[in-house]
Structure formats: structure tokens, C-alpha cells
């Protein structure tokens, strides 16, 4: 039928060829409003991330030009002499006399502390979640689960204070002394009073355990009971049942949860600021030595950087922040790649059962 004929017949829905156009013409005004609002809400995170990245780049640009590649190759981060009368100039940008910005010790501290935290937290959370989901009597599951959730909600500054006043000194007097007595290279040395790399990593581990454990617990609960019962019926021991049936089901989910935890550990600022000792321009000689991370250093140095009349110090901290953003994105994307690599259909068929 032609269009005029359709209209003459007073049809509400004109017959048009494409289903898409038909769908669009069937929408009421409310549909349109809702879909617009939802589209806006969905694109907001992308816009926010893009805006954040743009602003970070803009703030870091003078430092990027000033530093060049020495930012990634030197281990000295100094604001220079803010009370000198002369300034340094590189590539058209000015900085305080003697200023030099190198990020290597910060990257080292961030990556190593997050890695140690992950190595400690993942086995603990996965084992704990497994116990909570399968082995603990049902009447206790609720209560213990609540403790886990509460741990996730504790502010990080509380963790920092607890770490520096209680946990750190306790560890340095007991566990660290025993470790140091073994004289393993890099794991021995003066144990200090609580501020250091291992204490910070352990507190970070405590902070990321709830994230990984809650997610893992839900994953373990979602494993089909039939498969678990089948394993028991076949005569597998509990360990074998977990290894052969449960783990392949939840493997990708656990990796994803670990990446979430890693993201938190990479960006943790206040707790690390209080516990790390903020050692500048040196690599920790032992696992008990003070160190510094990118996030904590930005927070620590910012006040001083704001007094720099050339403003280059703030731009340099912006460059550190930009690098942290890039590292976090890489960690997230790497995690996604990892989950895709290890993903299965869920059934451990043809995987060496």
C-alpha cells in the first residue's frame, strides 16, 4: 500500500519496511524520555573518564615537556630549592633551581606492595570464601558473612592508624624478628617499629580480602549442586572435588575479583601514607624498610608543591597521577584479557578430568 492510502485508512502504525523504523514509530513519549535518560546515564562514566584523562594530561603537560624521558629513568624526585632566587629552564618551562622529577622508586613501591598484598590476600580470601560457602555450618554462615562485609566498609584511614600504632609494632616485635633471624636475602634487616614495606603490604592485604572473599563466596555458592554431588558420588575426596569441579567453574570470577582488589591496592593512598614511612629517592633494601608509592607521595608532597612559585612541582605531581591512572587502566585491561584467556564454559569437560 502507498503511504497516502495508509494515512487515508487512519492506521496508527504505517507499514514501513525496516523493523527498526517500525520499533521507533511504536515508541511513546515516555519511552523516549526514559531511553534518553538511560543513555545519558550509561555514557556518563565514559564521559567522566575521558574528562578526567584529559584534565590529567593538561595538568601534566608542562611536566611531560620539562622532564622528557628522564621521568621514567631516574630515581630522584626533588622539588628543588624553593627558596633560591634562580630558576631552571628546560624546553621552555621553568622549575625551581635544582628540581628534578623521576618516578622510578614510586612505581617500584606501588607495584611491589600491591603484588605482595595480592599474593597474601588471594589464597586467604579464596580459602575463606570456600569454607564459608561450603564447609561452615549453615547457622554460622550468616554471622561470619556479616563480619566479612563489615571489614569491607572500614575506612582506609582507620586501617592506617591501626597499622602504625598497633599492627605494625606488634609485627615488628614478633613475626618480623623471626623472619629476620632466618637471614634470607631481602627478608632480613632492621625490623624497625612498624613503618615499612611488609607492614603496608599486609595492611593492604587485609583491606582487599573482603573484596575478593565476598565475590568468591557468591561464586562458590553458584556452582551447581549436581556437579558437586556427582563428584562426591564418584568417590572424590573433598580436595579433589574442589580442584576438579568447583575451581574451574569459578576461576574467571576469582581472577576478576582479584583484579578488583589489585585496583584498590594500587590506588590506596591514606593508609599507605601513614604506614609506609614515605622514604624518598631510595629503593627499600629489605622488606622491612620504609618506601613510598605514587598515590601516597602525591598526597604527601602536594602541600609543598603548592608553595612552588613556578608551579612546575604541581605539574610534576600531575604527571605522577597520570602515570598511576595509566597503570591502573593497564592492570584492569590485563585482568580482562586474563579472564578471557582462562574462561571456560563452566563444565570441566575435556580438561584432564
Amino acid at each position: 500500500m502507498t503511504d497516502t492510502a495508509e494515512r487515508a485508512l487512519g492506521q496508527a502504525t504505517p507499514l514501513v519496511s525496516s523493523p527498526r523504523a517500525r520499533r521507533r514509530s511504536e515508541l511513546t513519549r515516555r519511552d523516549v524520555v526514559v531511553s534518553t535518560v538511560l543513555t545519558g546515564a550509561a555514557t556518563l562514566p565514559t564521559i567522566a573518564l575521558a574528562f578526567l584523562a584529559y584534565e590529567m594530561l593538561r595538568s601534566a603537560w608542562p611536566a611531560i615537556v620539562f622532564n622528557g624521558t628522564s621521568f621514567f629513568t631516574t630515581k630522584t624526585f626533588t622539588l628543588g630549592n624553593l627558596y633560591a632566587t634562580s630558576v631552571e629552564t628546560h624546553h621552555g618551562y621553568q622549575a625551581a633551581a635544582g628540581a628534578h622529577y623521576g618516578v622510578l622508586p614510586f612505581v617500584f613501591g606501588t607495584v611491589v606492595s600491591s603484588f605482595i598484598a595480592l599474593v597474601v590476600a588471594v589464597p586467604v580470601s579464596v580459602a575463606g570464601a570456600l569454607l564459608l560457602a561450603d564447609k561452615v555450618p549453615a547457622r554460622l554462615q550468616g554471622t561470619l558473612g556479616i563480619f566479612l562485609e563489615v571489614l569491607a566498609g572500614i575506612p582506609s584511614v582507620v586501617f592506617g592508624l591501626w597499622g602504625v600504632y598497633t599492627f605494625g609494632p606488634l609485627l615488628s616485635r614478633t613475626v618480623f624478628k623471626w623472619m629476620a633471624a632466618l637471614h634470607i636475602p631481602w627478608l632480613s634487616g632492621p625490623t624497625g617499629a612498624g613503618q615499612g614495606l611488609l607492614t603496608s603490604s599486609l595492611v593492604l592485604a587485609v583491606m582487599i580480602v573482603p573484596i575478593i572473599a565476598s565475590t568468591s563466596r557468591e561464586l562458590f555458592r553458584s556452582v551447581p549442586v549436581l556437579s558437586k554431588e556427582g563428584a562426591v558420588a564418584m568417590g572424590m575426596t573433598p580436595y579433589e572435588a574442589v580442584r576438579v569441579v568447583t575451581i574451574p567453574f569459578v576461576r574467571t570470577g576469582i581472577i576478576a575479583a582479584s583484579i578488583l582488589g589489585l585496583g584498590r591496592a594500587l590506588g590506596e593512598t591514606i593508609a599507605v601514607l601513614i604506614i609506609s614511612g614515605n622514604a624518598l629517592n631510595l629503593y627499600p633494601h629489605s622488606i622491612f624498610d620504609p618506601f613510598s608509592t605514587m598515590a601516597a607521595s602525591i598526597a604527601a608532597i602536594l602541600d609543598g608543591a603548592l608553595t612552588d612559585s613556578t608551579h612546575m612541582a604541581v605539574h610534576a605531581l600531575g604527571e605522577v597521577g597520570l602515570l598511576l591512572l595509566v597503570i591502573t587502566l593497564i592492570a584492569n585491561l590485563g585482568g580482562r584479557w586474563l579472564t578471557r584467556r582462562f574462561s571456560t564454559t563452566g563444565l570441566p569437560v575435556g580438561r584432564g578430568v
Partner: protein
Amino acid sequence: MKRLILLALVGSVALAACGGSSNNASSTTSTTAGTTTTTSVTVTTGNPTAAVTLNEAGSSLLYPFLQELVTPLHTQYSNITLAPSPGGSGKGISDAISGVVQMGGSDAYLSPGQLSANPGLMNIPIAVSAQAVNYNLSGVSNLKLSGDVIAQIYEGKITKWNAQPIAALNQNVTLPDTTIVPVRRVDSSGDTFIFTSFLSATNTTWQSGPAFGTTVTWPAAPGELTANGNPGMVQTCKATPGCIAYVGVSAEASAQTAGLGEAMLENKAGQFVQPSSDTITAAAAAGSGNVPANLAQSLIYEDGAQSYPIVNFEYMVLKSSQSSSDTALAMRTFLAWAVDPAGGSSSTYLAKEDFVALPATVLPKVKAAIAQITG
């Protein structure tokens, strides 16, 4: 006739009392090479017509003193409320520059770069304070240290308390074989500024290396710890046997309670002194002879047998042009009252924090600076 004159006098006094502001004119006399010139500095002060809150942020060394002044200031001038907060001198300076607070508290004077980048930014001293070096060694009291030795400790060159340079200064004291744990401030701090100024004045390696500032590049001393604010320094040192920390005198009472020892520092004349009102006053007097008009003056390592080596002016950093005339009036009034011995600079308030009043020679320049605040 006489009654008329008396009536007129009483009437004018009554009018002046009812009025919102009064004029305080102070005449000062300066003597140069035999001639006497009198400069009259008029600072307009008084209670503003509307309530004004003066927000202050910055030095944790100055903070307890400002806290003491809040109530008496408000009692004297009911429309002025002072709202101090700590955060470190660097924060005080940067907040004052950006306008987040009206006044920044700082133990450090402004740098040439800051002064040239911000015309109209001023630092006005209101008191003289000092800094002690505390240590955590049980059984050792009145330890003698020199700036050179302390610089080497913070450079990581001296690592044990019974090392030769320290033992040489303390002949009749048995020093334990404990590792020295230096503690430094992590926030941008005026205490760091005066401490590193002292180290720069006494150790050439330090002068050419980290030099001085509210934030410096600390050398990599093994095991060095960080703390936030003066109370944080006391806490960290208390928890760490063998520590050495620099603590402002306003926190010395808590350092004594925590069981930390106070070192006797070698001054320029070779005497070992501790901070007390006598030694601080001596240093301030020795250093106030030639204060520049912008009042940026260091009082570190001054001459004099009695002078304590780590002494400094406590500055309020602010902009000379304020947003409203009420704010400017409130600021001038607070500052003039704070340096007045009958007001904020009375011994009751100062002694509680171990501060001393500004030397009399500096007051005319301070008043001249206060008079420049307009709104």
C-alpha cells in the same frame, strides 16, 4: 565657661565611646647615626560593624598559641572570631596565596619567588618561637649535640648513638649502642624550614645538598621515619627507641610527658643551650638588628653566648588588599592586638607555649606592615 568646656569634654568622650571605631596612633622613634627621626604609624583598629570570622590555617607550631588567643580576642572585640587550624606552614602559605583562608600561619618567611609572583602578599610576625631536638634514649639526659652532628645523622652518616662524633661532645655520658632512627615531617612544614636552616648554617654538605625549605629532598638515611605535625613527631618518637626528632617548643610539654629528652644544642659562640625564654630572647634580640621592610628575616644560629640556635619569627601570611573593609579592619585589629603586650603578647599566653614577644626594635616595622592592610 568652665562648665561648658567640661560638658564638651564629657560629650566628646561619650561620643568616642559610642562610636564603632577608634584611631590608635603610635609614634615611633628611630635613631640613625646621631640624628633622631620620628615616624608616626597610624593603624586603624577597632571592632568591625559586622561579625567577621578570620580563617587561619597552617603552622602546627603556631596553632596552640592561636587557639589560646581565640577567647580573649573575642572578649575584647565581640565582632571578631579567629578560627585557626593546623596543617603545616606550606599549607598555610599556599592557602593564603590561593585565598582559601584569609591568613596563613607559617614559621617560614616567604621565598623571593613567592613574593615576586604574588605582589601584595605579606608575612607579618606576631611572636618569636623556637624548636627543640628531642631524642628517645632512656637514662640519658642533657645530651649535647651540634648542628654538624645532627646534619650527619640525617644524612645517614652517623647511625649509632655511641658513634665517635656524638661521644666526643658528651665525654662523661655513657651512650648506648642503639641505632639512631631519624624522624622527619612528611607535611610541608615550617619546622622543617627552621630545622634545615639550622643544618644548612652548620654543615656545608647539607647547605649544598638539601639546603632549606618547607619541603626539602631529605638524604636517604636508613630507617628514617615520617610523622605528621608536631604531635605526630612526639608520638612517633615516643614509640621508637633511639629516635631523634625536631619538635616545636609549643609541643615540648607533651614531649616531656612522653619521656623524651631535650638536647642541648651548640650555638655560634660554642655554648650548649636549651630553649628557654632567656635563650630565645637573646637570639631574637641578636637577629633583629637589620630586619628588612618585608619582615622576611631568619633568626637561626645567631651570635651571643646565650642565644639558642633554632629560633624563628612566627608569621601570619596574608594579602594586603582584602575583599571588604570589615575584614581588613578585623585583620588589622587582630594583628595589632596580638603583638600588644597588653593583648595577645602578654606573658600568660606566650609562656604557655614557650614563645617570647617580638623584640621592641621590630615593632615599628610590624605596625607599618599592618597599616598596609586595606579593604
